[in-house]
């Protein structure tokens, strides 16, 4: 029996979105980036907005996001994606513009660009993947690295007194009037991935309705950087990351949740 006798179009219940390329993901096995990419592309595909969407890739693990996202994309300098997206949204107000950034990119070097794009209420979507570490450069401390967490530049654990507290960028931007929608999600289980996808969809709907800035944090794992197996890293994330970075909506339709 040929495989095509079994796999028939009428029997198909699920397929990979055509907005993901066939290029093998360069992420470590177990990393959440692939799922976050996939969900973003599924939303763009299902909303039928590919032709009007422009993505902005960051510097960090997802610098090559454009190798996997099968849409028009531009790659920004480290931390500057919100500025790049600002200009695209301002000069093409009818387009859907999103940035996809990590914690080092968005919450360290790009703090100014993030805060000000949010404060201006740019009509863009920011997808912020927070795994508490610099993955690309080999596991250095990030602004979101938890207290006591070991990294290559905090080899004895992050010490608050000398290194500062993990930065809650999402709560910070939620307080800015220009920001319309802020939520914190994760993608490590099917349930969480479905919720994250709904959040991403809501964000792009907000762009369509010209509501201003939507900010989605995805708390994710870095099993390589955390020196854990994928499963261990997900359990550690649930037990530690979610305590400091609790999941859920923070601001919906311009109103802060109490």
């Amino acid at each position, binding site marked *: 029996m040929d495989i095509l006798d079994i796999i028939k179009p009428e029997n198909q219940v699920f397929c990979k979105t055509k907005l993901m390329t066939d290029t093998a993901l360069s992420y470590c096995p177990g990393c959440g980036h692939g799922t976050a990419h996939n969900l973003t592309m599924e939303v763009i595909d299902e909303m039928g907005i590919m032709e009007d969407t422009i993505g902005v890739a960051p510097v960090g693990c997802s610098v090559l996001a454009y190798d996997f996202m099968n849409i028009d994309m*531009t790659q920004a300098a480290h931390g500057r994606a919100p500025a790049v997206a600002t200009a695209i949204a301002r000069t093409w107000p009818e387009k859907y513009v999103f940035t996809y950034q990590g914690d080092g990119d968005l919450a360290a070097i790009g703090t100014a660009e993030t805060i000000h794009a949010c404060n201006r209420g740019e009509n863009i979507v920011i997808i912020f993947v927070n795994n508490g570490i610099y993955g690309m450069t080999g596991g250095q401390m990030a602004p979101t690295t938890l207290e006591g967490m070991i990294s290559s530049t905090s080899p004895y654990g992050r010490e608050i007194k000398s290194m500062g507290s993990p930065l809650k960028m999402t709560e910070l931007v939620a307080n800015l009037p220009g920001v319309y929608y802020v939520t914190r999600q994760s993608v490590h289980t099917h349930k969480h991935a479905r919720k994250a996808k709904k959040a991403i969809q809501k964000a792009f709907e907000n762009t369509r309705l010209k509501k201003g800035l939507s900010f989605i944090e995805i708390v994710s794992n870095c099993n390589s950087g955390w020196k854990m197996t994928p499963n261990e890293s997900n359990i550690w994330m649930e037990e530690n990351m979610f305590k400091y970075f609790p999941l859920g909506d923070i601001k919906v339709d311009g109103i802060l949740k109490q």
Partner: protein
Amino acid sequence: MSELKLMKGNEALAEAAIRAGADAYFGYPITPQSEVIEYLMTEQPEKRTGMVVLQAESEIAAINMVYGAASTGKKVLTSSSSPGISLKLEGISYIAGAELPAVIVNVVRGGPGLGTIQPSQADYFQSVKGGGHGDYKLYVLAPASVQEMSDFVEDAFNIAFKYRAPVLILSDGLIGQMMEKVYLKDQIPRLTNDEIIKKYGSWAVTGRKNRDRNIITSLDLQSEKMEARVHRLMKKYEQMEKEDLRYEKILCDDAEYLIVAYGSSARISQKAIELARKKGIKAGLLRPITLFPYPKQVLFELADQVKGILSVELNAGQMVEDVKLSVQHKVPVEHFGRTGGIIHTPEEVLEALEQKIIKNGHLRYHKTRESSIL
């Protein structure tokens, strides 16, 4: 029909940007160029042509906004002054690497550091020797009048789109702040989004519609690909040297002594050669209008005719290195310039020509020649 107005250099440049059909300006205030964004904010080009004007949170954000708009095929510019340009250099390197068209204006002030707000030409090295990281060059236009502040905007956009490369207009606080009469060009209509997609659809990110996706990046992790990218850039620069070199020769035909100067220094030096000729000294002026590409061959040939060359710059001696490289030791080359925001007078320039070239320079040159023969 062009319109005659009395304007500051910075204002003339801003007005010219609107009339050149620019789609966007992103900037951050800094003396002595703040009039550019002030003029644009007052003029409200959004109402006139639909041009977007935005005050960014920093020079860094502004240049990355330029990168963003340029990625989509829009005609976009930014302006700043020296310390601000230093901040923009990372972004400028990205724009060069990603092969995007953009116009950057530097109304130079004295440095290093916070320096002074007075005019200077101390950013010559930064402008023509890279400035930012990596193997790239900027096409550099040096205006010497308010008229050129206006005219060079359209020229700069034409070059930027011809080569898909960043173009720098290297002005200074003198040209930016002074008022002169200026003939403003007629309004060029902005391209519509459909026109941009049609014209630049082969590379610009405008949304993947009826074509393969476009990607703008300066990243090539494979060394062979990165080298190919660098070679592509080098080819552009070679073509610029062949096709888009600009310079002006003033009283060079019978010149025995030559001054090389650009921008405001050229204006002052022009007066200096007039004073020289009144004294019977046959002096001429070569004004490079583009600092890259540089009129190397012109200088090489002029060196056969003149006895000595003085490079006059508002800095401690930067362009003089390129003059020497061009002249290849045929005749003595000296530098004269004031720094710290002080502007030399035509009399000072003439005195420097007489002391450094006509008197001392010439003698010193012969001494070294003799000693090398011995």
